[in-house]
């Protein structure tokens, strides 16, 4: 027991919480499904030759486990493929925003002066507006497409990372190991990237999990509004939007099941993120 590394005890602490464990397992399932969608789907939903219009809008059960949509597409397969697009957009935008915002935030804390003031003013102004509004403006301006929506989501999210990275770096900057590294005559860039940045990472990771969940939800919302992805690459949000017209006639499955998949994805990320925050938050460690 005593030989536990910090990482091992961190892992043990994480799995002591049943909710977080459930979230983690669920998240693994979601990721595996998204990664292997082409191999585990019963049907390739975008191979038009395989679709049969006579099978359109079949209720769940029988040949199609979750029913079919208006074009006779198997919903289960469509959800697997949609999950892929949703996760790709969420994770890619999260990683880019983390890198960009993290670097800018650490740089601001390290350089200070005019640069820091200007950057933080921009961050403050941007965070004063709800993400959906900023994303809507950007998408209206940029147009549709996977790349466009990733750009819009990065623009929405970078500010959260920048603010977190700066405050973490401000705390770390005054610590002795930074002084020691400088005393060794290391270059400023090296001290910042190899010494300061890694130590400012934990809070960034916490913000990251929350933000990826947000990004996935935001992309789904924009796609639902018809402003996100093109119809050739339907994410979960677009699948839900496609089912909207059939909802009032009682054909619930076309938008209900993609919604459940979206909910489970976001929920699992939030559960994991919640636990990570509790564990990485120094203020709660005393208790």
């Amino acid at each position, binding site marked *: 027991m005593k030989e536990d590394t910090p990482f091992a005890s961190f892992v043990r602490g994480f799995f002591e919480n049943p*909710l977080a464990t459930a979230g983690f397992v669920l998240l693994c399932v979601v990721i595996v499904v998204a990664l292997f969608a082409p191999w585990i789907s019963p049907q390739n939903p975008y191979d038009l030759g395989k679709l049969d219009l006579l099978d359109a809008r079949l209720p769940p059960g029988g040949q199609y486990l979750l029913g079919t949509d208006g074009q006779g597409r198997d919903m289960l397969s469509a959800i697997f493929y949609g999950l892929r697009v949703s996760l790709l957009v969420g994770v890619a935008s999260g990683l880019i925003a983390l890198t960009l915002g993290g670097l800018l935030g650490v740089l601001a804390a390290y350089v200070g002066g005019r640069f820091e003031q200007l950057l933080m003013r921009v961050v403050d*102004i941007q965070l*004063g*507006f*709800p993400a*959906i*509004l900023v994303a*809507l*403006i950007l998408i*209206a*301006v*940029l*147009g549709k497409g996977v790349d466009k929506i990733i750009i819009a989501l990065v623009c929405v999210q970078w500010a959260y990372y920048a603010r977190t990275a700066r405050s973490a770096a401000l705390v770390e900057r005054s610590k002795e190991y930074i002084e020691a590294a400088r005393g060794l005559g290391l270059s400023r860039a090296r001290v910042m990237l190899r010494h300061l940045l890694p130590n400012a990472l934990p809070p960034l990771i916490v913000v990251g999990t929350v933000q990826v*969940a947000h990004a996935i*939800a935001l992309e*789904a*919302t924009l796609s*639902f*509004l*018809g*402003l996100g992805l093109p119809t050739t690459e339907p994410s979960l*949000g677009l699948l*839900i939007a496609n089912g*909207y017209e059939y*909802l*009032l006639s*009682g054909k*619930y499955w076309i*938008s*209900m099941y993609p*919604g459940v998949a*979206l*909910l489970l994805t*976001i*929920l699992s990320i*939030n*559960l994991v993120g*919640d636990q990570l925050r509790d564990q990485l938050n120094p203020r709660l460690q005393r208790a």
Partner: protein
Amino acid sequence: MTVYILRRLAQTLLVLFVTSALVFGGLYLVGNPIDILVNPAADEIEKARSAAALGLDRPILEQYGIFVKSALAGDLGKSFVFGRPALEVILERMPATLELAVLAMLISLGFGVPMGIFAGLYPQKNLSKFIMACSILGFSLPTFWVGLVLIMVFAVQLGWLPSTGRGPTTEVFGVALSIFSLEGLRYALLPAINLALFKLALIIRLTRAQVREQSLLDYIRFARAKGLPRRRVVGVHLLKNILIPLVTVVGLELGSVIAFAIVTETVFAWPGMGKLVIDSIFQLDRPVVVAYLLVVVFMFISINLVVDLLYSALDPRVRIAEAK
């Protein structure tokens, strides 16, 4: 203080200017509104005539220059689609959005604060754990999908409430509002609940955190030691102190509710500003989109400023720093 407000106002102008330039230029690049507005069968001469009538034949910089000049005089341009001043079209839809936002805020406060206080006072009870689990769920549920589920359950399956649209309106102080009649409320209930859910989760968490923090402090212990009934300690002493941060958040969230109404209004076909702007984006009705964003951004900045000022008035410990 005056310097502070002046600086904030200058900042506001800058943000409005940047937003308008960005959206103006962006929408110009996205597509030509003439292609959508004019009958596709029309010939080139016809198209050119409509473009000239709307001022779309001029270079973009000149168009923007004209826009800024008239915007400073309070004229945000005419809608391409409606043929009326864009600001007028938006203000006409504003009451519908505002009544939805206020109703949603009341719902989330009315349920969120008591639930949060309960979860904060008795963190070990099963009901508290259930409330907190629900609040995580509330954060994770995508708003538009919840809207669909609500429609499906309460309108399609049970048939209790109407699925979409806004009920009959009554004139209240010259503004057409629907929530003051029973029939109107029936229409407003589902969208308002939908809009409230996310905020409800937030308010529960915030209230709980505040209650847990405050109930450990000396003044609460002292009030208890004085032998005051529990109801009074919680209802007066505790509540007063958790209200300050709550007021700030509620103020700021009101703005975000108005922004999120875009989604709810689209799901429930509620004829508010949000639905209008989504339609306008599709129709490339640039004046309406730009005017909507300017109105919302302005509302936002004003709310933020008022909250900041209120905060320093409510809590003397927070003094606004004078300009250096």
